[in-house]
């Protein structure tokens, strides 16, 4: 039982990381109808930026404090993501405004490759560390209920906390600020939003910036856990099934979908894996998404897809 709970916990933690990446997808899709295949590449790019700047800032400015360096690196990386967002809107999105979804999808595929190449050219292609001072030691809880307690990674707990703070901030942003209101209007109906004077182009830049910062937070946490390396971009591909499960337009769906996938992967690997030679994690998320596509394409919380004639 204790082992089951431990597996469950580690699944939830992994799932939460998927949720973070999926959140970026959902934000962009809600506001611009674009499916951003490049979200994974954005996570990698942001993580690389932060990791390297955290290294370079002490070298360039002599700031010794690790917290200071990390903070500065975070801010710079955030700014860089906003610049990337601006370029993407200017160079790509603006020209493909009325194209169908498949074309936009393939364009973001192109952006993916471009960002992956650019990131490694500017920041290098080794494995880098992000050290934001999260304690790596495990903690044992509930040892009154289960002898020896259940092993939980402190790092994962902090990561969950950061993610929760991010989601809360985003919710506040969307609900309480006028920009957030404008974003929700655009997500609901582009034309209506335009007709009341909301500048679509600027909104899209803002959305991609927010998605970029979300990618940065995700990249920071992933990078701290696994190290920043090229495979980060492909692991983020695992977040695609999350949105299928949760629904393309639903923020709670992204979170719950991520948790389900994380837990499902871990549990199936541990309990089913030994029967089929292991490695189920490679396809579990996708096959689950496939099943959803056949029976409930809109996911758990998404809107029903209606085909109008």
């Amino acid at each position: 039982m204790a082992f089951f709970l431990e597996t469950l916990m580690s699944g939830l933690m992994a799932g939460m990381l998927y949720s973070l990446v999926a959140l970026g997808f959902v934000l962009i899709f809600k506001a611009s109808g674009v499916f951003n295949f490049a979200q994974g590449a954005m996570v990698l790019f942001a993580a690389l930026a932060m990791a390297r700047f955290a290294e370079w800032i002490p070298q360039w400015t002599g700031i010794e404090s690790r917290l200071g360096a990390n903070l500065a690196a975070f801010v710079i990386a955030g700014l860089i993501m906003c610049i990337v967002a601006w370029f993407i809107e200017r160079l790509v999105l603006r020209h493909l405004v009325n194209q169908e979804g498949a074309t936009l999808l393939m364009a973001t595929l192109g952006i993916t490759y471009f960002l992956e190449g650019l990131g490694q050219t500017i920041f290098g292609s080794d494995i880098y560390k992000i050290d934001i001072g999260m304690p790596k030691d495990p903690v044992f809880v509930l040892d009154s209920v289960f002898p020896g307690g259940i092993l939980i990674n402190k790092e994962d707990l902090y990561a969950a906390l950061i993610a929760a703070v991010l989601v809360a901030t985003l919710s506040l942003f969307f609900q309480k600020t006028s920009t957030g209101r404008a974003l929700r209007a655009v997500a609901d109906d582009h034309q209506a939003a335009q007709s009341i004077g909301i500048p679509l182009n600027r909104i899209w830049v803002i959305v991609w910036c927010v998605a970029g910062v979300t990618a940065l937070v995700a990249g920071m946490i992933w990078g701290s856990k696994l190290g920043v390396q090229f495979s980060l971009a492909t692991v983020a591909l695992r977040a695609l099934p999350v949105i299928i499960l949760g629904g393309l337009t639903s923020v709670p769906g992204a979170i719950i979908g991520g948790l389900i996938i994380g837990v499902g992967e871990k549990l199936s690997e541990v309990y089913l894996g030994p029967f089929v030679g292991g490695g189920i994690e490679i396809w579990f998320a996708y096959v689950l998404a496939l099943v959803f596509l056949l029976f409930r394409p809109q996911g758990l919380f998404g809107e029903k897809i209606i085909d109008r004639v």
Partner: protein
Amino acid sequence: MFYRENGQFKTTYKADQQIFPIAQDRWVILALIAFAFVGVPMLVDEYMFRAILIPFLILALAALGVNILVGYCGQISLGSGAFMAVGAYAAYNTFVRIEGMPLIVALLSGGFFATLVGMFFGIPSLRVKGLYLAVATLAAQFFCDWAFLRIGWFTNNTPSGSVSVSNLQVFGWSIETPLQKYLFCLAVLVVFGVLAKNLVRGAIGREWMAIRDMDVAAAVIGIRPMYAKLSAFAVSSFIVGVAGGLWGFVHLGSWEPAAFSVDRSFQLLFMVIIGGLGSIMGSFFGAAFIVVLPIFLNQFLPALGALVGVEISTALVVHAEFMIFGALIVWFLIVEPHGLARLWSVAKQKLRLWPFPH
């Protein structure tokens, strides 16, 4: 001046519906094919065969298959790598497990199994499209990745996980030297090219394009979307499966599942986008482009760097490749969504008017 159709009147439907109705086109294509079979072997060395021509021919075949599904029928697919893998491993198993199995039959059986897998993973296309379908095809990709890695039976239980074949021959002619491999692949490509062209300009091709352009209207005129979509998956997967078999048997000789990873799927999709969606010629252009570009960059970039005194490492060339591919995809989608094939037909239009400007 030279490329005019003056005097070329068609008096039968048969003449009007040829693959190349303009006589000049016919001559050029026949000459090109003759040159490919006879002239090229006299001019190129082993390296060209191994590094450029053979991969080009096989990937062009695969791109042809992907174009039928994505370009003609409008069903996005990111699982082509998996279908190539199925073709390769199925062909391997029939070749190795059945005594005296002829190579061509093994390859075709690879295509057959790829068809079954393709049709199975094509079922979601009956319910969803676009991004959702892309995710479904990725499920195929990752599941096959895992299956060929972990299920020992597929790899004949080799401990290393990689399989190899040798002693290839067709009707007594052996397929060992690069030249023989080249000719074999060329023959396969020409045959499939003609078959594919017949399909896309016939009734089934119209069905595919109708589904792509407006599936509601297609249903109303009596086309069954299920039949059209599944047949597109079937034909496409068959061709991609045969290409996979060729890739493993003829080009690589021995391979692991990583040869058919999701990167391969992206590569094929890029070929089709850059070459031209919905165009047979486009598949060839795209394949040529994507095969030649890395080699070109490998030579060109360091030379360029040397000119300005910057050292360009091989890693940097790879990164540059990524950036250039990505930028090109975006550029083509914005500027010429119909790819190189459209540029080609525009050039031919200009040629019809030459030497007049308009």
